[in-house]
Structures are given as structure tokens and as C-alpha cells.
């Protein structure tokens, strides 16, 4: 790349930070609106649960969407990893790492909301029910993603190994879920689901709004992370060019 060409386009992909920030902000606004609406709906509009759980049941309007968002984040990482292994230039740099990080964050939230729910519903902080167990494993497996990346010095190898691991980790999630049916049952099986059979319209609406809001939040943060990563790469390339002179 000649210095003249580099001056006009410092990175492989044109970096338009203002444009990236605008699209990210757009997504953030949507996320805020949707989640705000979700909170209002959950606490003001939906009926209080009649089956004895009372007010605490409402945490479920957030627990399930967060769980879905975590899985979507891991799926994004999986797709980015597969793309990178097949066509190395295709996925935006930093997408895979950002998606895993966000997936971890949301998984942590799943654990917290799940434990609160479990405490309210069954009086226990922890139970080996399928969803909690699977998310706990996902937490561990994806935390190890960063351990693996952190231990490899060579940049190219780090990316390759990281991508392979992201693929393996994603496959492990459904595998673990199926494995949990072989866990010995406790005194009573604890299942954290809403009874879908009798979901009122307001409840269903709240679910949808919260889910969309979480997805929007995920998209917004991913967009910001990609822009940051591209910006950092562009900065490095400029530094290299300066050094060469």
C-alpha cells in the first residue's frame, strides 16, 4: 500500500466512525424505548400472577428474553467464526470477540434472574434444572474462550484457534442441554418456564417487547464494538506507516 493510498483509506474497510456511531445510536435509542416500554408493561399493565408467586413472577419477563439474547449472541459468534475460517476477510474484526463477551454478560444475567426466580418460586437459590445448568456451563465454556485467546501470543494463530473454539463452544450448548436430562432428579423437578398455555395478551405483548428490546441492545453494542475494533486497526496501520518513514 503506497503512502498516498494509505492517506486516503487507512484501513482495508473504509472506516466511517461518524456513520457507525449514528447507526449504533439509532439502535441504542430503539433499545431504550423498547426496554422502557417493557418495564412499564411488566410492572403496570400485566396482571400479578395468581398462582402464588405474586409480584416476583414478573422477573420472568426479563429472564427469558435475556436468555434468548445470550443464545443469539453466541450464535453470532459462531457464524462469525465459521466465516472467518472459510473466508478470512469476511467477518468484521472484533465481532466474534464482542459477541462472546456479550453472550457471557447476558448469561450472567440469566443466572442472576434465574436464581432470583428460583428463590421466589421454590425457596432455593440453586437447582440443577436444565436451563440454569446449561447456562452455567455456557458461562464456563465461553469464559474459557478468553483464557485460550489470552494464552496465545501469535496474532494469526490466536484468531484461528479462537474461531475453532467458538465453534466448539456453540455446539456444546445444545449438547449440554440434552445431557441435563440425565441429571438425577431432586425431590421435585424445578422447571423455570412460564405456563405458555394460558398467556394473556398483555403478557405475550410484554414478552415480545422485552425480547425485541434486548435484541436491539445486543445489536447496538455489537455495532459499537465493531466500529471500535475497526478504528483501532486503522490506528495501528497509520502507526506502522509512520514508523516506516
Amino acid at each position, binding site marked *: 500500500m503506497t503512502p498516498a493510498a494509505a492517506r486516503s483509506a487507512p484501513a482495508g474497510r473504509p472506516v466511517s466512525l461518524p456513520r457507525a456511531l449514528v447507526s449504533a445510536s439509532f439502535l441504542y435509542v430503539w433499545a431504550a424505548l423498547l426496554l422502557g416500554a417493557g418495564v412499564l408493561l411488566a410492572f403496570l399493565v400485566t396482571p400479578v400472577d395468581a398462582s402464588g408467586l405474586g409480584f416476583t413472577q414478573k422477573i420472568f419477563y426479563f429472564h427469558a428474553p435475556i436468555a434468548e439474547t445470550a443464545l443469539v449472541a453466541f450464535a453470532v459468534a459462531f457464524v462469525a467464526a465459521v466465516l472467518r475460517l472459510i473466508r478470512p476477510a469476511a467477518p468484521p474484526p472484533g465481532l466474534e470477540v464482542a459477541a462472546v463477551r456479550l453472550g457471557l454478560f447476558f448469561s450472567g444475567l440469566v443466572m442472576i434472574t434465574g436464581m432470583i426466580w428460583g428463590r421466589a418460586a421454590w425457596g432455593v437459590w*440453586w437447582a440443577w434444572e436444565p436451563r440454569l445448568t446449561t447456562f452455567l456451563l455456557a458461562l464456563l465454556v465461553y469464559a474459557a474462550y478468553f*483464557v485460550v485467546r489470552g494464552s496465545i501470543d501469535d496474532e494469526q494463530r490466536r484468531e484461528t484457534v479462537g474461531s475453532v473454539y467458538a465453534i*466448539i463452544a456453540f455446539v456444546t450448548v445444545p449438547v449440554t442441554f440434552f*445431557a441435563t436430562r*440425565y441429571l438425577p*432428579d*431432586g425431590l421435585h423437578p424445578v422447571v423455570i418456564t412460564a405456563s405458555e398455555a394460558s398467556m394473556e395478551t398483555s403478557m405475550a405483548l410484554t414478552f415480545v417487547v422485552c425480547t425485541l428490546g434486548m435484541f436491539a441492545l445486543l445489536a447496538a453494542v455489537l455495532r459499537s464494538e465493531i466500529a471500535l475494533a475497526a478504528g483501532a486497526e486503522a490506528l495501528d496501520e497509520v502507526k506502522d506507516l509512520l514508523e516506516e518513514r
Partner: protein
Amino acid sequence: MAGRQLLALLRRDLLLETRRLQTVLSMVIFAVVAMVVVRYGWSGASTGSPGGSGSLGGPGAVGDAGPGGGTVPAAMLWVIFVFAAMLGLSRTFAHEREDECLDGLLLCPVDRVLVFCAKAITNLALLLVMQVVAIPVFGLFFLEGSAVRLLACTPVVLLADIGLASVGTLVATMVLHARSRDLVLPVVLVPLLVPVVIAATSATAAIVDRGAPLADVLGRLGFLAAYDVVFLVLAWGTYDLLMKD
């Protein structure tokens, strides 16, 4: 040609492992010592106090001692196997690390997947040798009456071992060039093996403790077989990339 190369790789591994019995001896000694330690610890807590098995208190905890204490020893057996496996797995490429023998191997016109096959088979063999010693010891220490039932566990052990060996070899390759390899390998490997441990423990406990016939645990055997297939396919697809520089 491929068959001949595979045999050559296996013969080399066999020679190297039997010249210096380091790896296999360490695995056997570790397994037996671990069982001794647990046995001593177990006699203290053997009268099955509820919640005494280390759960966070409450119903549904894995490892409640059933009659005759079946589930907990089975889980312990598989945990010990996993850690003994790790001793062997961390040595997977030990011979290649000396004198850059990995270069020597990569210089040969050999399909990288064959290298995986050879290493995985070697690791499987090491596991089996260790278990041939460890399983009778387990029967002796924990199962007085029902020790014979351990023979019926053979399919479980074989299928689980294939999973351990293939995932283990894949991960060992991923951390081949990593710093603090001995630290990273267990952290990365154990969460991935949790599904195997769950299924194998469940099946072993069913057979040993309740005398269940093999037909009862077919579901678990099928799960283990599926796990093996999934990860073997993953390894086959990604191994070439992992070996490239």
C-alpha cells in the same frame, strides 16, 4: 498410503510411550491414589447426611447418596478418569516439542487429520490401560457386592473414552503453542467434557447401583455415541486449520 502412515504414527507412539512408561504410569498412579484419598474421606461422611455431598443445599442436588451410595462413587469415578485423562492429554505433543519434531512431522506429505487420528487413538489407548487397572480398584474400594456389574459398564466406558480422547486431543492441539499450557488445558477441557461426565455417571450409577440392564441405559449410550460423532466431525473439519501456521 494413508493407512501405512497411520500405522507408522501409531507404531512411533507405541514405541515412545513404552520406552519410558512415564505417561501411562502417572495416569494409573494418579487414579489409584485419588481413589484412596476419596475412600478415606468417604468413610467420614458415609452415612449419607442430606446435603452432605457439597451441594448448595436443597433438593435436586446431584450426588445424593442413594441406597448403597451408588451415584456419588460413580460420579467420583468419572471425575477421577477425567483428571487422569488430563495427565495423559497434556503429554499429547510432548514428544513433538523436543527438537522441533513437530516440524519434522509437518514436513511429511501427511494429511493433518491422520495426525489427529493417530494422537486420538494413542490417547484412547492410554485411557484404556489406566482404566483396566483403575476400575477393578474402584470395585474393590467402593462396591464390595456389586463389583461384577462393572463389567456391564464396558460399552459406557468405551463410548465415553472415545469422547474424552477426541475432544481432549482436539483441545490439546489448540493449546499446542499456548503459554501456560498446563494451566489452560484443564480449564478449557473440563467444561467441554461435562456432558460426557453426566451421561457416563448416570449410566454407570444405573448399572452398578440399581443393577439396571444395558437396555435401560440405551438412551445414555446413544447420547454418548452422538457426542462422539459430533466432536469427531468437528475435529475432522478444523484440524487442518489448527495445524497450519
